[in-house]
């Protein structure tokens, strides 16, 4: 697909749709608080960045997202390992984890803001809560999916359970863990933004909220644009790490190709 011709075509299509959008808004005289023309969105973007406003809020949201991602993934990894390795832990803990997961965690955001305040903490916790589950499930499945024959081989070498874990189960789980991180990254961003909607002093989510009150629709569009670019970059970041860690996984290349199709 990546021929020079197709790339040119995709650039042309992009420009055409932007120009078409602008023409429709002007031609039908649609008020800017319903649908702003791209020129105004670009202007809002430029103003926001040149005044330093966007960068300040963007960096705050990024910090929340990254902290939430790290805390949530670490928690998911540890708990997933515990559930996978210990039958009692699975029996007593897993039902609650599943119950908790079926709860739409977005609905928890108001409570978390009440409990942990308008600052950074509530956003990190909310992001971590949402990011945690994909890691938990993937770690669990990954650790349990070690091929029976490989386990037999390790046992035939008189390996201890600990050795089987470190030399076989853990590396074997890595493709699953990396897939979990992929999802968790985007989930953390969602968690941070939602918590900002509920109540915050800083961040892009809070900015969208206040712009909404001021009918600044072009401003909102400009932030949506930033968020989608941020999401894309975070996702690519995880993918680069995944490719490095899983250089040995033959399904890796295939999976990346598939993602490109589904993205």
């Amino acid at each position: 697909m990546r021929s020079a011709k197709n790339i040119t075509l995709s650039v042309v299509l992009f420009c055409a749709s932007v120009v078409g959008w602008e023409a429709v808004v002007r031609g039908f005289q649609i008020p800017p608080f319903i649908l702003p023309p791209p020129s105004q969105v670009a202007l809002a973007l430029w103003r926001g960045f040149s005044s330093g406003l966007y960068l300040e809020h963007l960096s705050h949201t990024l910090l929340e997202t990254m902290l939430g991602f790290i805390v949530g993934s670490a928690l998911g990894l540890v708990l997933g390992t515990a559930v996978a390795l210990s039958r009692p832990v699975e029996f007593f803990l897993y039902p609650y984890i599943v119950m908790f997961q079926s709860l739409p965690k977005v609905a928890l955001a108001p409570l978390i803001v009440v409990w942990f305040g308008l600052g950074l903490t509530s956003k990190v916790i909310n992001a971590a809560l949402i990011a945690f589950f994909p890691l938990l499930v993937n770690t669990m499945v990954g650790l349990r999916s070690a091929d029976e024959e490989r386990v037999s081989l390790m046992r035939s070498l008189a390996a201890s359970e600990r050795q089987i874990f470190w030399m076989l189960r853990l590396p074997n789980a890595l493709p699953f863990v990396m897939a979990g991180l992929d999802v968790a990254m985007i989930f953390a961003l969602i968690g941070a933004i939602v918590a900002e909607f509920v109540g915050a002093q800083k961040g892009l989510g809070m900015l969208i909220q206040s712009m909404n009150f001021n009918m600044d629709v072009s401003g909102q569009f400009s932030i949506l644009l930033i968020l989608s670019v941020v999401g894309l970059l975070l996702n690519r970041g995880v993918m680069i790490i995944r490719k490095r860690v899983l250089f040995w996984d033959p399904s890796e290349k295939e999976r990346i190709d598939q993602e490109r199709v589904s993205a």
Partner: protein
Amino acid sequence: MVTEAISVRSLSKLYATRDGGVAALERISFGLDEGEFVAVVGPSGCGKSTLLKILAGLLAPTGGSASLRGTPIAGPRRDIGVVFQAPVLFPWRTVLDNVLLPVDVQGLGRDRYLGSAMDLLALVGLREFERRYPWELSGGMQQRVAITRALIHDPAMLLMDEPFGALDAMTREHMNLELQRIWMERKKTVFFITHSIPEAVFLADRVLVMTPRPGRIVDDLRIELPRPRSLDVMTSSDFGRYTRHIRGLFNVKGGLDA
């Protein structure tokens, strides 16, 4: 009396099922001498893999005893090397790291075994491939890595469970020659499971013939063919006599036709 490399006395294995139990092995007895190459041949389901798992210490028998060099087998031991039907390599390890897996597991010290790992890789013709990863190798090459891995900690004996069953016929013949060469050079006791009668006759000093339900040894056949055997030996009349004899046992017992 000299202690046998492997000694199996009225060994039984009963698998519990809904309607009672299935005898995978019923009172099997045999012995292997030090340095001997013994093949077990039989149709699938005759319990030969169960037998190997018991010898490898991966499975406990329900009756009888098996001992290795005079000591009873009570779990996995470090003085055997096992080769499975699939190469069972770890994809995140290089060829060399895969070969050194037993050394890592048993904490023998990589430095001391690096030299012999390279020698063994040269022996199986994989000298230049030590830094490659398993997916870069063909099926035959992967199985040679598995054999190298089974030999690295210098085990007293080698247990092989249909190691060439997944390979194509040409590669398989080639691997048979390789295995004979390795065995003649290293003089290990080999316990080799296969469902190919010609493979068993070609490789072994002795062939144990097994039939299923219940798993039993119906013949213990000494193969008197000179070594090293070339592939041409397969067209000799002696070779034909041995294979015909074994095939006849299956037909009488209904093993292959069942």
